[in-house]
């Protein structure tokens, strides 16, 4: 099953819709540990991405790059820039290929994850979006259909959130709170969980 520019555009539209109900939830999660802007920021970034007209874009790789560029003008926050970094790296990997296969998704997530590690300097295990993406990359390894992919991704992101809840944050603003962060969801991981859930058909 192939992934097209159209299916990417559809996913963005869906994510953009989902942010309506998620914005406040994510802001509240961030307010516990950080500055309470994760939701507002993601809504802005995904909103900008949804404005991008992909109708004449040649291939999925170019689409990801265009979305990344749209994201860079909308945010100055860590998560937003990491998001753009991941999209840009995945787009570069996909560059020139007319279509992508569902089987390529795992590698694309891993590429995004690695670019984000390089950009942000955090490690796996620090309780960030990286851990969610890592879990998704792992879960998508055997996936064959888009339906299965979204289901597996949503499940992986949800499990990662559960797993890391009991650990402390080791990066960003939340790090300042040390062990007080145990038992609290990382807002970035929560965002991945909720957005991937929203993509399940």
């Amino acid at each position, binding site marked *: 099953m192939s992934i097209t520019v159209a299916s990417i555009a559809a996913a963005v539209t869906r994510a953009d819709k989902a942010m309506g109900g998620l914005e406040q939830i994510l802001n509240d999660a961030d307010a516990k540990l950080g*500055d309470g802007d994760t939701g507002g920021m993601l809504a802005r970034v995904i909103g900008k991405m949804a404005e991008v007209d992909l109708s004449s874009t040649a291939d999925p790789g170019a689409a990801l790059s265009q979305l990344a560029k749209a994201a*860079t*003008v909308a945010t*100055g*926050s860590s998560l937003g*820039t990491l998001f753009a970094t991941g999209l840009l790296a995945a787009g570069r990997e996909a560059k020139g290929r007319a279509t992508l296969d569902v089987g390529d998704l795992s590698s694309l997530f891993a590429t995004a994850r690695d670019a984000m590690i390089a*950009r942000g300097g955090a490690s796996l295990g620090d309780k960030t979006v990286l851990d969610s993406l890592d879990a998704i990359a792992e879960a998508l390894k055997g996936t064959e259909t888009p339906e299965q992919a979204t289901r597996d991704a949503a499940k992986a992101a949800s499990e990662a959130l559960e797993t890391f809840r009991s650990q402390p944050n080791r*990066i960003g603003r939340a790090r*300042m709170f040390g062990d007080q962060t145990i038992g609290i969801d990382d807002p970035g991981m929560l965002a991945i969980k909720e957005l991937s859930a929203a993509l399940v058909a």
Partner: protein
Amino acid sequence: MKKLMNKPSGFVDEMLDGLVAANPSLALGGDTGRVVHRAKPIRSGKVGVVSGGGSGHLPLFTGYVGEGLLDSCSIGNVFEGPTVGSCMEAIKLADGGKGVLRLYGNYGGDRMNFDMAGEMLEDEGIRTTTVLGNDDVASAGPAERQKRRGVAGIIYAYKTAGALAETGADLDAVTAIAQKTVDRTRTIGVALAPCQVPGSDKPSFTLGENEIEMGMGIHGEPGIWRDTLREADAIADEMIERLLADKPEGAGKRVSILVNSLGATPLEELFILYRRARATLEAAGIEIVRPLVGHYATSMEMAGASISLCFVDDEIEALLAAPAHCPFWTVTA
């Protein structure tokens, strides 16, 4: 906390509007509308010096755009980094064909954005270098100096890099002097009362009725201790002691000092601090050159002060003395 503002969402853009309207030497640029640059386009052949950071710290960062200082500056929302897009635009506006120094505070988000902006501009052939302000001694131990945050002391690097760039020096030289200045600058702050981000319904941190926090960061990041308010002389002594304990390699007997208000603390109190800091430094055999006392890097209406020491050598001292002019800092020959 009462603020003279309109809608919180307009806080930054209206502030920038007013800033450039009141200062014809500045202009607002870029599609993002979040880049302040010199009104006069950069001289071809001059190395550009760009900075950037969150809003809420005036005169930092945008206020230091001017002759012998910055060429341009990208600016984010209050206490948020500037977007990658605005960083790209700031770099382009500071490009005179000889490369651009990115000189900004060591915060994770800002680094990511400036790094990404630099990478995205590589294909346009703009060479960039990076120097990170990391003067805040309270934010990490001496062994982890590269982890320290950048605070008020970065203006010393603005001054030396800006002055050297005006002479026509190349990018490596401008980068080197900025790095040396950062390496020789140390800051510590003390907070007395919080500020509040526009639109937020609570202050950025809380302190008891009679409580202060030594070493607190400019966004309320935890410091070294929290205890009852004491006399200014005792506070100044501890701050100077902590700074001298962290003296950089190669430090001589001459320092420039910056006694800076975090916002609400008035000049009167800064001068009381300065008086003691100066006496303590002189007692330690250190001579003060070009002291600065005032509002140089604030966190809106936060109360408190920071003290920065720049351990000058002859080169730095000469560059600090070079003429410079921006809306908030004028050095005349």
